[in-house]
């Protein structure tokens, strides 16, 4: 076990720090007033509907675009696996590794070759002839071979079958277990992230809605079910839905005094959905402290 994986203990230094980030495409803002930090060694999930600004945030983090406002700071080197895992189709797998070696100062070619051999991906095969899962593995291997401090993955699991999703996640998690690596990965399927991520960032319509430790967030929220009219005083309502005379609410804070409420801890998906349905709500460290 590596020593850098403490969950509790003092707050870890940030691996990624975003301050007042604003990105504009022509006249529309893709990202506005976005400030967050992801602590070292965490696996952060970046979730939000399509067009929320996830890719924009990631591109800003890896320097693919220059923000109009604010800035992004990465502690150390970042590696990026873009959406659809772009690779050179006419290259063989081995040539992709040469490409990585020639375009990077840090490069662990032996580890990369071992990984691909372990996955049974033939080095002589053309990239264009790989299956979706193999392609994803090659892209992830290239990114990991740079020995990055921050690994940014844009929709790494999209278009993969369940087995390939599992395999890709295993590869990434094994690397996290091995050394101090921070991961930022985006998905619009929350259930993909349930067991793998310990940090949550929710973007919605170009604005940051949630940023914090997943356990603390889940501990700080409750799902209340009760009759319409029951008092939820003392809590902060994130969102509510009514069916007939029954109300279901996602709230922050301690359970309310009204005994008619049934309270339970939300699941990750419930928490995310609750926020996405109420774009005006936010749970940010800067506003009220995570898990108030």
């Amino acid at each position, binding site marked *: 076990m590596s020593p850098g994986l403490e969950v509790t203990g003092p707050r870890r230094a940030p691996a990624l720090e975003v301050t007042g980030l604003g990105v504009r495409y022509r006249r529309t803002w893709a990202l506005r007033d976005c400030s967050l930090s992801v602590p070292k060694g965490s696996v952060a999930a970046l979730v939000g509907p399509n067009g929320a600004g996830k890719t924009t945030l990631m591109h800003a983090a890896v320097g693919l675009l220059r923000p109009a406002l604010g800035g992004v700071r990465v502690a150390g080197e970042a590696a990026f696996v873009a959406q659809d895992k*772009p690779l050179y189709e006419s290259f063989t797998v081995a040539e992709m590794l040469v490409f*990585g070696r020639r*375009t990077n100062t840090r490069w662990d070619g032996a580890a990369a070759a071992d990984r691909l051999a372990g996955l049974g991906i033939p080095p002589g095969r053309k990239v264009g002839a790989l299956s979706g899962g193999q392609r994803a593995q090659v892209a992830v291997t290239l990114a990991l071979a740079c020995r990055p401090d921050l690994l940014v993955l844009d929709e790494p699991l999209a278009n993969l079958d369940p087995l390939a999703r599992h395999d890709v996640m295993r590869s990434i998690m094994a690397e996290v277990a091995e050394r101090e690596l921070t991961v930022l990965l985006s998905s619009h399927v929350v259930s993909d992230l349930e067991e793998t991520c310990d940090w949550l960032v929710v973007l919605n319509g170009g604005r940051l809605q949630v940023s914090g430790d997943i356990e603390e967030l889940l501990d700080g929220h409750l799902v209340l079910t009760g009759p319409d009219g029951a008092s939820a005083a003392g809590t902060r309502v994130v969102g509510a839905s009514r069916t007939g005379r029954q109300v279901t609410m996602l709230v922050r804070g301690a359970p309310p005094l009204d005994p008619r409420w049934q309270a339970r801890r939300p699941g990750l998906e419930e928490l995310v959905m609750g926020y996405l349905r109420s774009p005006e709500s936010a749970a940010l460290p800067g506003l009220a402290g995570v898990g108030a």
Partner: protein
Amino acid sequence: MIWVTWRQHRAQIIVTAGFLAVLGVLLLGSAVEASRYVAEHAPPGCPGPAVACGEVAVALGRRYDAVYSVFGWMPLVLPALIGAFWGAPLLAREYERGTHRLAWTQSVPVWRWLAVKLSLLGGAVVAGGLLLSVMVSLWRPVFRTGVDSTFGNIGVFNMVGVAPAAWWLYAFALGTAAGSLFRRTLPAMALVVAGVAVSMFTLFQLSDHYAEPARAELSGTVLLDDHDARLVRAAWVEPSGREVAEPAGTGCPRRVDVGQSSRNAEAWQACLFGKGYRYAVYYHPPSRFWRFQWTEAGILALASAALGALAVRRTLH
């Protein structure tokens, strides 16, 4: 990065090198064949005024035409191809396939990626252009010594000296810039083809102004005794010394020629010359070959630099 550039563009490099090799073999073969023909058929004393010499010269001209017609289209088509297949895909294909997000997120900074690719490929293109020029320059004298030089025919002019290298570089830069603007290979290719054609026509028009034309006053003929000069314009000079475009009130009858004949025009010209008119011709003599070559190369190099800068700016955003 050198390996990356080679690996990504080796198809273009190999095809271009192969083309130049085939062309070289063709030119060499045709030159050797022509030399052998001359050795066998030309009697001693040729070139000279003998009838046999004329026959050899005509046969040589025919041999020249056969090969020239094969690559007569090259001055226009080759730069267009270079622009379309070397320049246009350079950035456009990366954008099109999304691989710019791979290439530009490695530790090599984008500006270096661009610098290496532009300088290596640009250098290769210039070398290819120069090689073409050398081959054509070595081949032509076998047939054309004493017939014409390489100045008057704009097609030949663009295949010798530094012109091919300049045109190839310009087309490459144009393709790269178009790729950075459209971010799609096909539209960028189309723009290159159109752009090279328009540029060539424009520079051809412009080339009259590369230098102050020389002036010659002719009497008795309207034809300059230099096949290889570039005519800029001509005018009639009245006996008083005034230049006019169309002599009026001369008293010389002017009739329209029918068919291929130019008898009426010649009669009119002879009448004018008889009345003391002279014919002024403004032209560029072939001795200005290098001046024109370097002027054109300079313009194209500047344009290439501007287009390259545009592509870099667009890419670095």
